């Protein structure tokens, strides 16, 4: 076993060991599901950060920033802003209403089985959707570390977590989150300092716009790609020059055949990328930089970004081609670099109203903007609607503790999100990016600094995945046991039955998450998390907000709103371009919905349904407990 692996195993092992030891007393169902409501507020606050700064935040956001710049940082801003909703609007009233789950809180005002049931279904669906990116992240982590395949990583994480949840419960889960939350924030701080001290260095390993090669063939007839005699692929530029590209060839039935012209039997890899090609003032290296000069220097530099194109050759083989493109740094610090949001720059190739395609372009620009606004709305509304965040309000004693732990959480999370911009941009220019997986950017950046930081960061990210998955599985099994089983069977389970059923549920949910994690492997995990936020916000936010703030809310209104929001948003994401392209392997053009983030439609829809149903079907039992003041 090499040193990296040793450090990794020791760290993961000790975090788990400590957590088990601290959580060893939890035996009753109250202890299993809510840690007896006895977790101190500061610990709970950092555990909030631990829960929230999942694989998505660390791996996904850093990767998104490393590949698209500012568009990844939008997730940081939105994910934090969502906490404002949680703190100011939801936290205390919710703490006052409930015991174990979101469904309990709703049920405390209405003795309605349909509410309990719909809230439980929503909790389950959201948790499972949030589990997918964690599992994908797990696979992404294991690959550079152990050289395993993606699916093996997913299975290992799934198995470990299921064991944690089955043997431990909420106390251990909280301690895992606390320890790993603190470690994550501290070590990302260290990584940021190291990145700033390294500064930028010009790297010209990947030339662009070379003299066009001779003796070429066109592997993709009609497209501007040239294969030269020595087996290198070039993209023809408009000025007559050519740029060497990296590429993979996959057979029609999905088998990898070639990487950069090498047969797949030699297990070749794409070359790692990520470079600055010109620094301001023509210097070769900057030396150590401060946080502000890091960003201003980057905005005045030129960075090589790799744009992916997918084409099919006459033999129906699929070419994945990455073309290096010199990009001005200032564009990387503005929204709109990601292909989904390109329309918002308003610089779609000169929209000339006289030309026939201009209507199409204008429509694209509009949809880009709607998608963008919808994402920001989902991030803002989603946090306070996430079941695994909501259950953490039941692990503290009372509202003041709920409040204080939220503020602690906000500081830890916000500080971390500030760091993501530097880590992401550091990875963008580190020369270590893996073109096929945006999720590995942060660990690979650490690897360029040294094996030790790599081992430590990977171990933290791995415990992050473990902790978040454990929390989600807890939330899901809580929903099944308390709400689904209890209300469907129509009787209260005994304490022992509850814990046993919870553990069985945990195993089922864990297995489901593993399967889906393998299916969604090629997607950026932040993007996947954003979908979970869309679904959570659409299903739960209208119910939560109107329950707390509108006296006319009825039980029927709530269940109708939850189910409508849940199923419309779920159907929407499953019918989107990204799902078609990355999950089903179908052409993106066949997608059934015009943009990929549903929140801007489905959240208002939830509110409308709740109000309309409450007003029209008004005979359902009205609130029998006075609403909180």
């Amino acid at each position, binding site marked *: 076993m090499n040193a990296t692996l040793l450090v990794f195993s020791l760290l993961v092992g000790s975090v788990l060991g400590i957590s088990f030891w601290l959580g060893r007393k939890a035996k009753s169902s109250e202890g299993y599901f809510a840690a007896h409501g006895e977790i101190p507020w500061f610990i709970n606050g950092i555990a909030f950060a631990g829960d929230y700064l999942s694989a998505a935040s660390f791996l996904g956001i850093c990767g998104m920033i490393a590949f698209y710049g*500012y568009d990844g*940082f*939008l997730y*940081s*801003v939105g994910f*934090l*802003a969502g*906490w*404002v*909703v949680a*703190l*100011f*609007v939801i936290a*205390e*009233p919710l703490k*006052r*209403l409930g015991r174990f789950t979101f469904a309990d809180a709703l049920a*405390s005002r209405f003795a309605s089985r349909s509410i309990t049931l719909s809230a439980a279904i929503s909790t389950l669906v959201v948790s499972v959707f949030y589990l997918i990116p964690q599992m994908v992240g797990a696979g992404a982590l294991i690959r550079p570390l152990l050289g395993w395949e993606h699916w093996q990583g997913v299975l290992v994480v799934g198995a470990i977590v299921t064991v944690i949840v089955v043997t431990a419960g909420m106390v251990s889960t909280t301690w895992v989150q606390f320890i790993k939350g603190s470690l994550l924030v501290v070590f990302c701080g260290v990584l940021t300092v190291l990145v700033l001290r390294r500064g930028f260095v010009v790297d010209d390993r990947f030339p662009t716009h070379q003299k066009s090669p001779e003796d070429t063939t066109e592997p993709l007839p009609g497209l501007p790609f040239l294969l030269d005699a020595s087996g290198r692929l070039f993209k023809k530029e408009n000025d007559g020059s050519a740029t060497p590209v990296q590429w993979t060839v996959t057979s029609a039935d999905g088998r990898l055949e070639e990487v950069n012209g090498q047969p797949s039997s030699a297990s070749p890899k794409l070359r790692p990328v990520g470079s600055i090609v010109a620094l301001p003032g023509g210097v070769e290296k900057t030396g150590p930089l401060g946080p*502000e000069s890091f*960003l*201003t220097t980057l*905005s005045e530099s030129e960075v090589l970004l790799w744009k992916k194109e997918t084409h099919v050759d006459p033999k129906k083989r699929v070419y994945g081609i990455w073309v290096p493109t010199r990009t001005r740094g*200032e564009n990387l*610090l*503005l*929204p*709109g670099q990601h292909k989904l949001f390109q329309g*918002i*720059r*308003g*610089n779609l190739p000169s929209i000339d109203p006289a030309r026939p395609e201009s209507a199409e372009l204008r429509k694209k620009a509009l949809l880009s*903007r709607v998608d*963008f*606004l919808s994402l*920001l*709305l989902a991030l*803002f509304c989603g946090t306070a609607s996430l079941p695994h965040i909501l259950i953490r309000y039941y692990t503290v*004693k*009372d*509202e*003041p*503790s709920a*409040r*204080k732990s*939220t*503020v602690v959480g*906000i*500081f830890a999370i*916000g500080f971390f*999100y*500030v760091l993501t*911009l530097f880590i992401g941009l550091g990875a963008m220019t580190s020369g270590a990016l893996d073109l096929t997986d945006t999720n590995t950017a942060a660990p690979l950046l650490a690897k360029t600094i040294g094996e030790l930081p790599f081992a430590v960061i990977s171990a933290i990210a791995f415990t992050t995945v473990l902790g978040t998955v454990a929390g989600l599985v807890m939330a899901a099994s809580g929903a099944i046991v308390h709400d689904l089983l209890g209300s469907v069977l129509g009787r209260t389970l005994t304490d022992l039955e509850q814990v046993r059923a919870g553990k069985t549920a945990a195993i089922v949910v864990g297995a489901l998450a593993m399967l889906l994690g393998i299916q969604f492997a090629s997607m950026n995990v932040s993007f996947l998390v954003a979908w979970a936020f869309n679904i959570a916000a659409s299903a739960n936010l209208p119910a939560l907000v109107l329950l707390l703030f509108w006296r006319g809310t009825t039980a029927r209104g709530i269940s109708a709103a939850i189910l409508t929001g849940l199923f419309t948003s779920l159907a929407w994401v499953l019918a989107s371009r990204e799902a078609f392209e990355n999950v089903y392997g179908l052409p993106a053009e066949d997608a059934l919905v015009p943009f990929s983030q549903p929140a801007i439609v489905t959240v208002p829809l939830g509110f409308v349904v709740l109000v309309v149903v409450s007003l029209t079907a008004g005979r359902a039992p009205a609130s029998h*407990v*006075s609403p*909180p*003041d």
Partner: protein
Amino acid sequence: MNRRLGLVLFLIYSSFYALFMVLAAFYPNVVALRPTGGLNVAVGYGFGLIFGAFALSLVYLLLARDETPKTTKRTDAERTGADS
């Protein structure tokens, strides 16, 4: 009381957030400006939203009162123990 305070702070923050959404989506030229010659508006505003959340959450922590909930009665001993 806390509820009112929370709502006021929420409205302040969400208007800042809404302005950010509108600027970023519809005014690409504005977010590209570099008013001080250093960071552009997009990055500055993004950091502003993060630090703004810090500031407002501290304001809330300082101004919010410990209210006795109406649904669950606690003893004084428990309440004093809660903050220790």
